[in-house]
């Protein structure tokens, strides 16, 4: 029997009220889907080189100046943020999902804040968050100005 009250995939993107890790989950899903779609588009984009140098140059110019607006760097910056988030959060998940850097089982005490999401796991989130900001700043400056800081 189908589950009548099933929340469905749309609920992945509704982290409200469930805490920080649930937000990370929603963003991880979202960025994962974006990266998947991007990879397909990327293969299609680069396949244009088979149609000769002229088409290739046209495609490159169109992607940098879509419809006459210099929008390319913004797309690249957004993509960079997406990839950096997914990579760093994925690194954290690889660690904690193998039972490493987590607390030992403890005695629950009111108001029952889950400690698995705190402690080293939380420190990891902070460190990787800072790393994400640093990488993004370097990357975005490079994308817009071509200068390596």
């Amino acid at each position, binding site marked *: *029997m189908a589950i009548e009250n099933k929340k469905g995939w749309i609920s992945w993107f509704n982290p409200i009220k469930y805490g920080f890790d649930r937000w990370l989950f929603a963003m991880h899903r979202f960025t994962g889907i974006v990266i998947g779609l991007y990879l397909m588009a990327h293969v299609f984009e680069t396949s244009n080189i088979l149609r000769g140098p002229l088409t290739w140059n046209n495609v490159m110019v169109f992607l940098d100046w879509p419809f006459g607006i210099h929008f390319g760097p913004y797309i690249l910056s957004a993509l960079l943020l997406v990839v950096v988030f997914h990579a760093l959060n994925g690194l954290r998940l690889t660690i904690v999902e193998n039972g490493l850097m987590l607390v030992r089982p403890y005695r629950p005490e009111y108001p029952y804040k889950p400690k698995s999401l705190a402690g080293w796991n939380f420190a990891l989130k902070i460190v990787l968050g800072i790393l994400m900001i640093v990488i993004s700043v370097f990357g975005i400056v490079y994308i817009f100005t071509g200068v390596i800081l």
Partner: protein
Amino acid sequence: MELVLKGFGEVVKTVTFRVRRYDPEKKEMPKYMEYKVPVQRGMTVLDGVLYIKEHLDPSLAARYSCRMGICGSCAMIINGKERLACQTQILELNKDLIKVDPLGNYDTVKDLVPDLNKLFKNHESVKPYIVREEAEPYGEYIQLPEEREKYALFTECIMCGACLSACPTMATDDLYLGPQALAQAYRYIADSRDAGFNERLNLLDSKHGVWRCHFAGACSEVCPKGVDPALAIQLLRGVLSKNVFIKYKQNPAKLGPERASIKEVL
């Protein structure tokens, strides 16, 4: 002696309950109905639901039993989060509109009553009991207090089913075991008296087993008893991934002295 409680029975404010009504026997879509409930100090959401049942609409169905957070019957989605209705103070929510839904990811029996069969079936499938090779013992297995600490946290579960409703994997995967069952699997695997790791392994190490968890932490966030099922799942995964390289060995605890009294009972 006459007991006078200050402010007792005094109506503090009136809140609106928006309750999801659904009866599978009538071929109607679920709908929301609103009720005005006068709130006294100390009134829980469950009291509010019962007030509606007694005074406004007797056809409203809800499940409850202990009213003190022990039985795990009354879990509902209250203002978008899974909570025990009997443990949620209306005044603490601090809202004029209280939205009450039955638990998600389950069939609904009627109105606020979810069909928890799935929870119990999954729980049963991970063998939530001590598995031993030898026959029924006539005494206790010896366990140290430190050994008990390794799983004591996860024995706290009252099987309310809130975690399955909050779990984003459960939202799209019917066959997933769910945080409750996986936490209980770890509770028995980490128990020094148990010898059933290999019996449970096939089920846990399957497509719908531990690897489906993505550590969103929602289960731990909503658990009314602080069981932290997410922690159990990650630790279980640690055991399973180490098991790939070095076979996980359980050293089942030794049997204590035989007891004549147990022999008599059995």
